[in-house]
């Protein structure tokens, strides 16, 4: 590939799923094999692109590892045009999205993609929205990608139909529509006071906001923050999450773990870009509040993990606890702590995604969500699994219970951050950062360490209990029918966690370098605006 073509690489994660999803709408539902092949190809291309960008961000392409790759759409220069920015953080998120997205899709190919109409198109649109949200460098464009992501997620949450999903969808759609309105109010207030929507431009202008406008600007940021805190499921705005995620079909729940992390990503990105130490009177705005909210989320998630009875709900609360952990550390705004937090986020997202997939296999046979459903639309399938259930039983993997149990134990240890696996490396890096940093050994740091350790302990108790119930107390006659794509999907996610553990040094190096890069927002601004200030 020539360098000029490589420059367009960054737009592929948005363009490819969009075009493929649009094309799929032209195909009949019966041609699901074509659609599945197309989705797989798109996901593979996304994975390739993400890894290529990640590799470039880590070793440094043309301009070294510390620059961001900037792509001006339609060649309109920032801050007037919309830019896509792939820096260390964006590419890390993109790689995470591509991996979890591919795993969810492969899992769905076993049977879930036939459980309702237009699964593949919605799935690819979700991938497009999530990728766009982490790549964009413009606040309003972020809103558009967020809405694409949410619109696709509404459809996917309802995928498979059934009363439980429709009830969950009703609440999920309402709360996210409200969050979008908060998003718009926040963006409007920020535009009204700063006069910019480009994130880099915004960052550069913040020190010069007139004092009279500053309260209004900060109110705008707070309202904008509420929108992402709802998405990231921070306490007390995230009470909707366990219900919605546990009602969703398994592959959808697995990719929904990404949605929460996108909320966390935006909070991290914006708070580092807008409230850096040199940003004048707004420096450190709401940082302590973010930490306290994050810790409250962790505590709430830990309590929920212990209280929940079903694995899906346990994992839902674990997702909250993981988001809360990262949020609390975003509030600390310390480079080495952020490095550990990002590492932990990647590991816990992969592991919670895997657990959602395992949960569905374990509860198979008592598919409550499917009991007594009726078709409401002409093209809806009433009984999607009946046709293929019989023919595929022959392909049940041998010793599936043992292998699945091993996967479960592995994912549980990562989510609970127990040594020697990836989650532990992340938490250890966080603790070391908290104990060694500038403001080290303050009471707050000890509180964070205590609460994070407690949440690990609570998660371990809950998952061990669920594991005993799910694997050891299992009725012998009730064999697990696991299909090969499902093994590949779960195994892939577990394999990534394993890789994160084995290559922990290199990965942690990347994330701590990313944390360091985030604390130097002027470099980001310079890369985007190219000396146009």
């Amino acid at each position: 590939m020539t360098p000029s073509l490589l420059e367009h690489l960054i737009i592929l994660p948005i363009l490819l799923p969009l075009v493929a999803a649009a094309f799929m709408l032209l195909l009949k539902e019966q041609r699901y094999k074509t659609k599945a092949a197309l989705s797989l190809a798109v996901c593979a291309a996304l994975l390739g692109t993400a890894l290529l960008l990640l590799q470039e961000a880590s070793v440094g392409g043309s301009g070294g590892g510390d620059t961001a790759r900037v792509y001006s759409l339609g060649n309109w220069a920032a801050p007037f045009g919309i830019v896509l920015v792939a820096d260390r953080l964006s590419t890390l998120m993109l790689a995470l999205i591509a991996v979890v997205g591919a795993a969810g899709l492969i899992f769905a190919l076993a049977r879930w993609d036939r459980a309702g109409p237009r699964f593949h198109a919605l799935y690819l649109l979700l991938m497009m929205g999530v990728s766009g949200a982490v790549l964009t460098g413009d606040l309003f464009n972020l809103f558009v990608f967020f809405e694409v992501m949410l619109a696709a997620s509404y459809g996917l949450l309802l995928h498979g139909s059934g009363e439980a999903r429709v009830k969950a969808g009703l609440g999920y759609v309402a709360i996210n529509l409200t969050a979008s309105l908060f998003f718009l109010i926040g963006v409007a207030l920020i535009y009204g006071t700063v006069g910019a929507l480009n994130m880099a431009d915004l960052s550069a202008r913040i020190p010069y906001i007139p004092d009279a406008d500053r309260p209004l600007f900060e109110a705008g940021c707070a309202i904008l923050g509420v929108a992402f805190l709802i998405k990231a499921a921070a306490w007390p705005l995230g009470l909707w999450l366990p219900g919605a995620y546990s009602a969703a079909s398994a592959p959808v729940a697995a990719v929904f773990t990404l949605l929460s992390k996108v909320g966390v990503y935006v909070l991290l990105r914006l708070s580092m870009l807008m409230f850096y130490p040199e940003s004048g009177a707004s420096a450190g705005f709401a940082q302590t509040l973010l930490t306290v909210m994050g810790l409250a989320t962790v505590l709430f998630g830990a309590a929920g993990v212990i209280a929940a009875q079903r694995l899906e709900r346990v994992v839902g609360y674990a997702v909250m606890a993981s988001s809360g952990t990262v949020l609390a550390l975003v509030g600390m705004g310390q480079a080495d702590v952020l490095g550990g937090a990002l590492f932990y986020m990647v590991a816990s997202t992969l592991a919670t995604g895997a657990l959602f997939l395992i949960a569905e296999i374990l509860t198979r046979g008592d598919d409550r969500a499917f009991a007594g459903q009726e078709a409401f639309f002409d093209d809806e399938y009433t009984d999607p699994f009946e046709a293929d259930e019989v023919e595929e039983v022959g392909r049940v993997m041998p010793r599936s219970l043992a292998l699945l149990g091993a996967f479960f134990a592995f994912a549980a240890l990562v989510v609970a951050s127990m040594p020697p696996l990836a989650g532990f490396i992340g938490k250890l890096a966080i603790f070391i950062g908290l104990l060694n940093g500038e403001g080290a050994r303050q009471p707050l740091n000890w509180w964070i360490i205590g609460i994070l350790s407690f949440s690990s302990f609570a998660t371990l108790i809950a998952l061990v209990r669920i594991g005993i119930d799910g694997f050891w107390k299992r009725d012998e006659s009730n064999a697990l029918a696991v299909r090969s794509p499902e093994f590949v999907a779960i195994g892939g996610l577990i394999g990534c966690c394993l890789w994160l553990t084995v290559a922990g040094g290199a990965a942690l190096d990347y994330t701590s370098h990313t944390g360091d890069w985030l604390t130097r927002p002027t470099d980001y601004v310079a890369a985007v605006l190219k000396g146009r200030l």
Partner: protein
Amino acid sequence: MEIVLAIGIGILTASGVWLLLRPRTFQVIIGLSLLGYAVNLFIFAMGRLKAGAPPLVNPGEVDTSAYADPVPQALVLTAIVISFALTALYLVVLLTARGITGTDHVDGQEPE
């Protein structure tokens, strides 16, 4: 002019929030629509109110105070389209929920 707009946005928002917190799905969707209108007006107002000023720049005239800010107008257009589409989508979910659960309560069941 500002006070009229501010009162209008305030009334729309207050009614929207009240309806959003009501237990029937139809009230919720009307509440969301009203809130959407309020937010759209608010975005528009953030470009400052100006009467009779065009948003398009005349090549010869560079005095920016003679123009209305075009950006919020573009934003509000996008916001209208998106909120319209999503409200329509919510309407479908609402009708499906009504059909499956047999009630229009947001919890999917009548309170005891």
